[in-house]
């Protein structure tokens, strides 16, 4: 077999070669190496806290990838993804705690349930455009939040639900490392599916709708149906991630699924890069790490004897820095980490000859 390297021009002889995700065998190789490292090295490098953070990154990345399909590819801004994440979490929790449904079907049903809810909230997109649609998804967020808190018989209100231990075929999932494998297997699968969706006719139709919906309609694309599909896919991703999260944390309350979480998801994909699947992963990593870092810092200061008094007042600065980082990022690298990554990659490829 001939090893494919990056050519200095376009020498592809068959169109199939252009369809490949990776242009060179090196790309494929690196991905393979990456996956090996991900599953065989990383779980043993980190302690329980490190894995806890990684697991969160994996879960958020799944949700962010889904959201990027909706916002970055289809151009429909949703401010309700925090609540969608919650719908998945609640569905899984209710199924597992009240009906004794096993882990796998519960998580999948969590995704499906959310995607139904997502479709319902996507219906206004038939008539609403741009910011009007955005605000109607904001309405969705608040309506769902209200339901989480007030439908006590189902959701347990503010007290929430405690989930039983998750089991797969009789094997009980416990500990961060086991969950790491479950989460990251889903992560790899969902990433691959997302890549496939965006490089086939569905992805092309999404981009067409984003760029010019009138022309898309004229090219025979049923715009509304595709918008709904996009809502469905992205809310499935969010719900699935939410369900994983619920199973992982073991108990849920309405508290995390607020508007702030929606905003954090959007921050992830914008910082990662709109319309970039890999970017969403970077974004999820970045935001999760920042969040952890800032709260660790606050906790650390809180524990220092002399500073305990001051620490309480320093806590709000966490929010300040979070905002500041987003602002700085947008001002200095509005195309997101994906763009930085692209530049790094291409300069590495051409090194030592820039240009």
């Amino acid at each position, binding site marked *: 077999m001939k090893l494919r390297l990056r050519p200095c021009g376009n020498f592809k002889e068959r169109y199939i070669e252009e369809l490949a995700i990776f242009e060179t065998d090196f790309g494929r190789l690196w991905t393979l190496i990456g996956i090996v490292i991900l599953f065989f090295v990383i779980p043993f490098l980190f302690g329980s806290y490190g894995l806890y953070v990684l697991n969160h990154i994996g879960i958020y990345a799944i949700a962010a990838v889904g959201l990027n399909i909706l916002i970055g590819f289809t151009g429909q801004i949703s401010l309700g993804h925090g609540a969608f994440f919650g719908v998945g979490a609640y569905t899984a929790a209710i199924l597992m705690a009240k009906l004794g449904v096993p882990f796998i079907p519960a998580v999948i049903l969590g995704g499906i349930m959310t995607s139904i809810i997502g479709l319902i909230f996507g219906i206004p997109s038939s008539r609403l455009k741009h910011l009007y649609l955005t605000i109607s998804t904001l309405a969705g967020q608040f309506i769902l939040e209200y339901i989480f808190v007030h439908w006590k018989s189902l959701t347990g209100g503010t007290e929430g639900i405690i989930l039983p231990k998750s089991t797969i075929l009789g094997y009980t999932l416990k500990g961060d490392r086991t969950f790491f494998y479950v989460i990251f297997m889903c992560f790899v699968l969902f990433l691959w599916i997302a890549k496939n969706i965006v490089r086939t006719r569905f992805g092309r139709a999404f981009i067409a709708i984003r760029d010019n919906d009138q022309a898309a309609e004229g090219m025979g694309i049923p715009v509304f149906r595709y918008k709904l599909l996009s809502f469905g896919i992205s809310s499935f991703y969010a719900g699935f991630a939410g369900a994983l999260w619920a199973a992982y944390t073991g108990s849920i309350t309405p508290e995390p699924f607020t508007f702030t979480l929606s905003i954090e998801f959007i921050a992830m994909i*914008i910082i990662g890069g709109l319309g970039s699947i890999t970017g969403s992963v970077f974004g999820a990593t970045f935001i999760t790490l920042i969040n952890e870092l800032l709260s660790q810092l606050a906790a650390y200061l809180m524990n220092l004897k002399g500073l305990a008094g001051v620490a309480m007042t320093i806590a709000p600065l966490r929010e300040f820095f979070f905002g500041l980082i987003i602002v700085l990022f947008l001002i200095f690298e509005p195309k997101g980490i994906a763009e930085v990554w692209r530049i790094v990659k291409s300069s590495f490829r051409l090194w030592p000859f820039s240009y």
Partner: protein
Amino acid sequence: MDFFLTLLVQGLSIGCLYAIAALGFVMIFKSSSVLNFAHGELLAIGAYIFLVISVWLKLPIYLAFIITFVGSFLLGFVIERLFLRPMIGEALIEVIMLTVGLAAMFKGLLLFIFSGNTYVYPNFLPAGLAVKIGSVSISPVYTATFLITVLFLIIFGLFFKYSSQGIYMRSVADSQTAALSLGVNVRRVFALSWAIASLVCAMSGIVLGILNGINVHDLSKMGLKVFPVVILGGLESIGGAIIGGLIIGVIETLVSGYFSTSLRDVVAYVILVIILMIKPYGLFGLVEIERV
């Protein structure tokens, strides 16, 4: 019947508050099509400046007003210059996201300085503003709110319809390149609209503060409350913001009066979705002109 009337008056008064809170928001949207997520924080900043000057520094009220207005006008200018100007030419969603970042920054700072406590202003409104219609009495705060709302409605209506600067602002929102080609100073338009918006926010923040006390969390929540109000009326319409405010104010009060208070916060959004499905550009918004 009396109960209903009381609720109605109360609802209308709250509606006026929403309306006045929405004005600054519409101002920014009309000139740059940006949804400002930091709106609630701008309200809060205005309210706190006034608090510091009138209560902590104990300066006379009229001076406090003047300083607050000048200060927030400048603040709007600075915000535009520091944060929004570098974003000219970027996609709208990124600019909107930037205001989200700003919101977090301001909220963090305000909490850091003032913490989450609630403060109150001294009562300085003249008692003569109290009005009694039949069995329903209206407190001075509401009368003042109503008067200010009407005043702003007239000023802004005239400004956007007839003044050159107002027309330039609308032209920039419509097409930046065309506006540039005719020599409209786009940067100045943006700066001015943020400055004016910030001033209006300070006004609204003070009014809200008089009524409910000043609390960072409450005021920043108010920033989100503004969304259904302006969308209901139609994003570009000042009159729409006021009517949207009144509708939502009345319905909220009626719902919490007759059903339950917990429904209060969510009912605005339910109404919003229903109305948008019937009128996709709000009650008074510009219908998008699309030609193929």
